[in-house]
């Protein structure tokens, strides 16, 4: 099995550690991983701004770069949701794309569903708050979500629970949006920041030392608010915890 690693553009540029953690974690599990450097971006910023025609070249590139892999794995629920759920609406002729889309998976989803991982070899003796990023939750269905009446499950939570010493804190609102939302973060800056602060105070009241999640974008937004206010809570991508990295 050959896996293509898709690293979201902003993770590549600003959070390389999350990318390295993903790569390390996959390799430790015996997966053959390649990072094709011809990749750039899934196209979501343009697509979510309503400019599908500007997103199309990104999607075409994605298809060309990744079609040859058995699976494509990415440390992002949001970018994977873009590929799996929205590329269809772009009307790209490449026949390889239709077959590729279902093989594109978020990291925890890949560990849980494809590799069948139920426990990881890692230690993280900290109180951790899990931020359930919306696209992972409600588009990829990585967890059951508080709105629906179905048997509760959470793929990410179950993996985190296997980490030695890690204590997951209970949030008052376990799956409310952080307010990042891509261009929403700047277009609706006031509401975006109000939402982010509310998330932080929920984690803080629950006693979290670290906020983690499957999407670095949500964490980037929360980190921006945390750092501005001098709050000592840290953010870490879930891959950084699952591969055993410590808070430096």
């Amino acid at each position, binding site marked *: 099995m050959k896996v293509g690693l898709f*690293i979201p553009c902003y*993770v*590549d*540029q*600003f*959070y*390389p550690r999350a990318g*390295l953690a993903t790569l390390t974690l996959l390799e430790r599990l015996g997966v053959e991983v390649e*990072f*094709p*450097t*011809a*990749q*750039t*971006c899934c*196209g979501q*910023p*343009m*697509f*979510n*701004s*309503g*400019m599908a025609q*500007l997103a199309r*070249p*990104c999607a075409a590139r994605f298809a060309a770069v990744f079609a040859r892999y058995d699976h494509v794995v990415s440390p992002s629920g949001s970018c994977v949701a873009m590929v799996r759920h*929205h590329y269809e609406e772009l009307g790209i002729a490449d026949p390889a794309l239709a077959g590729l889309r279902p093989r594109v998976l978020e990291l925890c989803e890949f560990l849980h569903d494809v590799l069948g991982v139920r426990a990881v070899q890692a230690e993280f003796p900290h109180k951790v708050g899990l931020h359930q990023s*919306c*696209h992972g*939750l*409600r588009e990829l269905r990585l967890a059951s*979500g*508080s*709105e*629906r*009446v179905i048997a509760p499950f959470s793929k990410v939570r179950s993996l985190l629970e296997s980490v030695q010493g890690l204590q997951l804190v209970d949030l008052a609102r376990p*799956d*409310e*949006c952080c307010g990042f*939302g*891509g261009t*929403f973060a*700047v*277009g*609706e*800056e*006031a*509401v*975006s*920041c*109000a*939402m*982010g602060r*509310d998330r932080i105070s929920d984690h803080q009241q629950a006693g979290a030392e670290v906020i983690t999640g499957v999407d670095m974008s949500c964490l980037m*937004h929360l*980190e*921006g*608010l945390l*750092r*501005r206010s001098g709050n000592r809570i840290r953010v870490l991508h879930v891959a950084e915890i699952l591969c055993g990295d410590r808070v430096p």
Partner: protein
Amino acid sequence: MNHPEKARTFTADAARTAWHDQALWFIRQKRDRAVSQVPEWEELRARAAAIKAHAMSRLDHYLELFEARATANGAVVHWAADGPELCRIVQGLLAARGVQRVVKSKSMLTEECHLNPHLEAHGIEVVDTDLGERIVQLRHEPPSHIVMPAIHLKRAEIGDLFHEKMGTRAGADDPGYLAEAARADLRGRFLGAEAGITGVNFAVAELGAVVVCTNEGNADLGTALPRLHIACMGLEKIIPRAGDLGVFLRLLARSATGQPVTAYTSHFLRPRAGAEFHIVIVDNGRSAVLAQPEFRSTLSCIRCGACMNTCPVYRRSGGHSYGFVTPGPIGSVIAPGRDAREHRTLPFASSLCGSCSDVCPVRIELHTQLLAWRRVLASRGLVSPLKLWSMAVLAWVLRDPVRFERAGWIGRRLLSALPRFLIYNPLNAWGRQRELPAPPRESFRDLYRLRMPRGPKT
């Protein structure tokens, strides 16, 4: 109407924003508890969506069936193409019978069609009898929520309003006392009314009957005494069979307020002896939505308000920030269909978190439709030039991996080197309340190349 600006004004009062958020979240939690008691909840939602999709696909048939059955029952059915026609029909009915005083139960349709100001301009007194509606009517402002019209107001503000308008004790804000005062004030108006206007929650085609749901019994009071009842309904309120009510009534109140059922579910089949029953069926843009497959499912909306209660943006920006009769996610997909230019900021007033789609009892894919509206707006040139330009530049950078890498390198170096005041300039909306990420020296692809001695794969 500019949502971000109105939202900024709303959030400037942080304490009030937190209070508003919590008040609505409380309703969302009540809803969660209520729906968790119904194991077949998801099946009910799917059934409701299917019934509505079916009804909309044969709307002409069911509307004509409804008209025939209602007429056979002794009701008079009127058709209004738009808001002004609804206003003319209702005012004509009232004027022909010399009606001066009207009581009205909750009807978002009449809000949408501006019926109250039209009737008032013709010298007719209209009293909204739903307590929340009455409060906003006395304040001369629109409702901020479709189920809880005065949810934006605190108890003390209502106490002050009632003191001014109804002579309650100054400073009194006990809910029981204030509700009793409103009740006493309204009772006389119910007794004196010459006509009662109601909305319609469901119109059952096979019966020719309309169903009105209230928690205050005000629709019943308002139609029990007057000799004229006018029910106003949007043409999408049609459901085929009486049995379908078993699906929708179970969904409606649980979604709206977390109650198993509304306190009053009133079925109007025929006029009372000696009284008249008129039903006005209003289009006002709905058939145009029917013609758009992408947005057709918005016609399935049963106006429960659950998408507002769950929306993290609505809860922190208030109903009035939307500038449309229906706020929140459902309003943001209906409004641009009425006037895309006027409401062009609404499809962007969402983080696309998708919670609205998951609470919706009729499974309207609200966040997908918000996204679809963004595409429509962009194609009509209704997004800001700045956004268009910045996205075009971004897309150009991302089109080529070498260009992307260089741009990233330059960006990270600039962020490291530039003085803080240049980075956190007034144009940097991200940096107003947030830090930018600390730029690392190497990108992921730099590090990947370093650890791959045989050279990068492309």
